[in-house]
């Protein structure tokens, strides 16, 4: 066999043995956004796909696979071929809460590869500006004196916002009535006086705060929120609940470590791109990088505590 042919055969053999090790990515990468176009997940996904362009030889294409509270898109990623060409945007509730509520192709954080944490959306608690409660302390005192009378609007049961509230109820030993809404519809319900308190992310609340109609009385995060500096964190008030909604990059289990490394490095650089930093500022979410193994530990902790919580609340499937 002449030398060049032997080399060619050798190269082909090598290529079939470990195709990804040689050239990743060798075609466009699909980034599954498990929520509809125009939502927060979609905005983050598209912003990242744009910002990562410079750092990967192939484009990243965002595909929206909405439905099933994010589980359909997540399941698609988990079941994809583990070569790094199909990855997704994971959300903490989709990963750590949904498996307790319904049978899914994934259960624990060991069933997929969290590549890195990307961003966090803080959770704020707010009342109408003319509400009798001036502060979160007032609210909890009032709720303690009138069990079940305070109505709290949350965006759906089993969401991080709902579970933050339930944790607060448990720690503060108060009974408040939870009313679930879809999306941000708890905000008009609060403005119309149909609920007394509501929880949401900062962006849709801010215009109403600026118009003097809504007052933020507390935030679930580690430090105070720069837009609502007067509102204490619940940690300051003695209730150590800091879980916000975070999104992470996820790949199917079995994706080679070298491929995960390429993706991690590229997306980490994307998070620092000025355009993405600007996007985060515009949409009031926080860039919150953490390496993959740390995310997996956090997801495991949330999986355990929130799993216990949804079982206590009777939300988990029997």
């Amino acid at each position, binding site marked *: 066999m002449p030398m060049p042919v032997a080399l060619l055969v050798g190269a082909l053999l090598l290529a079939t043995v470990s195709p990804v090790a040689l050239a990743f990515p060798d075609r466009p990468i699909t980034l599954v956004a498990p929520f509809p176009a125009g939502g927060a997940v979609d905005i983050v996904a598209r912003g990242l796909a744009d910002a990562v362009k410079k750092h990967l030889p192939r484009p990243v294409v965002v595909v929206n696979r909405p*439905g099933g509270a994010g589980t359909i898109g997540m399941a698609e990623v988990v079941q994809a071929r583990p070569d790094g060409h199909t990855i997704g945007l994971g959300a903490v509730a989709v990963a750590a809460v949904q498996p307790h509520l*319904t049978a899914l192709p994934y259960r624990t954080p060991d069933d997929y590869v969290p590549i890195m944490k990307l961003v966090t959306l803080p959770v704020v608690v707010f009342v109408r500006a003319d509400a009798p409660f001036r502060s979160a302390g007032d609210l909890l005192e009032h709720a303690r004196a009138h069990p079940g009378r305070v109505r709290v609007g949350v965006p759906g049961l089993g969401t991080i916002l709902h579970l933050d509230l339930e944790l607060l109820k448990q720690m503060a030993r108060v009974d408040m009535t939870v*009313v679930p809404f879809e999306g*941000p519809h708890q905000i008009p319900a609060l403005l119309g006086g149909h*609920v007394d308190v509501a929880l949401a992310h900062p962006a849709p609340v801010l*215009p109403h705060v600026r118009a003097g109609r809504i007052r933020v009385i507390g935030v679930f995060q580690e430090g105070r929120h720069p837009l609502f500096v007067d509102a204490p964190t619940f940690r300051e008030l003695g209730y150590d609940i800091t879980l916000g909604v975070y999104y992470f990059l996820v790949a199917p289990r079995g994706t080679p470590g070298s491929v995960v490394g390429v993706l991690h490095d590229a997306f980490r650089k994307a998070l620092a791109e000025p355009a993405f930093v600007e996007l985060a500022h515009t949409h009031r979410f926080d860039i919150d990088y953490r390496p993959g193994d740390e995310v997996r530990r956090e997801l495991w902790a949330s999986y355990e505590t929130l799993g216990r919580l949804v079982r206590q609340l009777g939300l988990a499937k029997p």
Partner: protein
Amino acid sequence: MSALEGVLYGFTVALAPANLLACFAGVLIGTVVGVLPGIGPIGAMALLLPSTFALTPTSALIMFAGIYYGAMYGGSTSSILVNVPGEAASVVTCLDGYQMARRGRAGAALAVAAVGSFVAGTLGVLGLVVVGVGLAGAALRFGPPEYCALTVMGLVVLSRLSGGSLARAGVMVAVGLALGTVGMEPMSGVSRFTFGAVALAQGIELVPVAMGLFGIAEILALAETRGTLPRVASVRLRALLPTREEWRRAVPAMLRGSGLGFLVGLVPGPAAVLSTFLSYAVERRLARRPEEFGHGAIEGVAGPEAANNGATAGALVPLLALGVPFAPATALLLAALVIHGVQPGPLLVSQHPELFYGVAASMWVGNAMLLILNLPLIGLFVSLLRLPQHLLLAGIVLLALVGTYSVNNSLLDLWVLVAMGVVGWGLRKLGFEPALIVLALVLGPMMEKTLRQTLFMARGDPWVVLARPLTLAMLLVAAAVVALPPALRAARRLAPVHAPARHP
């Protein structure tokens, strides 16, 4: 800034070349996706969202609003000509529009639909500017109990949509309600009737059901009977326009539809779809010859086609004044704003007058463009029917499949489309009204959601519901609609006993 100053200022914004272009692009895309079955305004906006990064927020909203109301114009075309709804808000237009086409009045139906849309668009813009923000305050007084009562009333009243027996209507409503429960329940995340299939968690979507029950079913029926689509002898514009008598009947229906549509736009839910059902029911109730409905009554085209356009204007009120999208389509309008960092809310009109008034004025400009665009196109669309039928029908099926897939990238939606086509074909053989399935599929999940919210709020105390006057009134209306007809029949049976006494 007064409303008048605002409108004048708005026109300077709307007529700026870039915005004029955005408006034209929007209404053109809207018309096209409206005409094409399967893909509707929501799918089109989702696909185009990334491209709006390059525009200013005002231009982006002008373009998306154009797609939204433009689709309402386009949607009627395929409903009328081939009984295939161009999008979900044109299902009702199939009922009488297609019958008009069969009787050779396709041109009249198309013209009335276009003019009705224009009238509603004009009045809607007026409503948005003059009373818009105030109405948002009124909409806030509607909480879960009110919405729940509203859906109950809507379901009861509208299920009498097409006459016929109550039992038959009940069966269709029950099927629609049942389909609405499939999938992951959005408030608690519980999966129902998914049989362990993750794909089913997304639920049964409105678009493939509407396309299947009407579009695919019609094509199956034509294939089976070797029937033909309506033939149009002449495509001269003169012959296509409505007669004086047709105008006389259509104009009041347009005005009523415009008002109804605008108000329905303020209610959370797929407003445009609902408004068409409501308008149809009202027109049928008010008509001097209700028996004509279902056989080509022009009011049944004019009213609903005006209503869905009115609803697009009404739906902008909660979006712009509260920053909360009430309808699936306005969620994408909101997205077009927030990707630019504009979060609408109570201060939008004072902080971004160029946006509020500019978009309002552009809607009028866009509606005028649509009218100019659509009237001459009637001839063209009607001549589509001259294509060899086997090619036209195969093309429609292909478009419906591609369009439906493009909305969610979901294979399940395709299976639903095909299955509903077969179901719809069977239903018309048995004489059932498939529009009621669409209606119940829209209202069912809204009713369930608001009922659950009400129950959460009430904590077992019925007074929470009954002490609210609006809620109580709507529930009483619903009860009356169910109870009165049998009561009146009973009274009539008793009447002859007394009658001779009065007329000896």
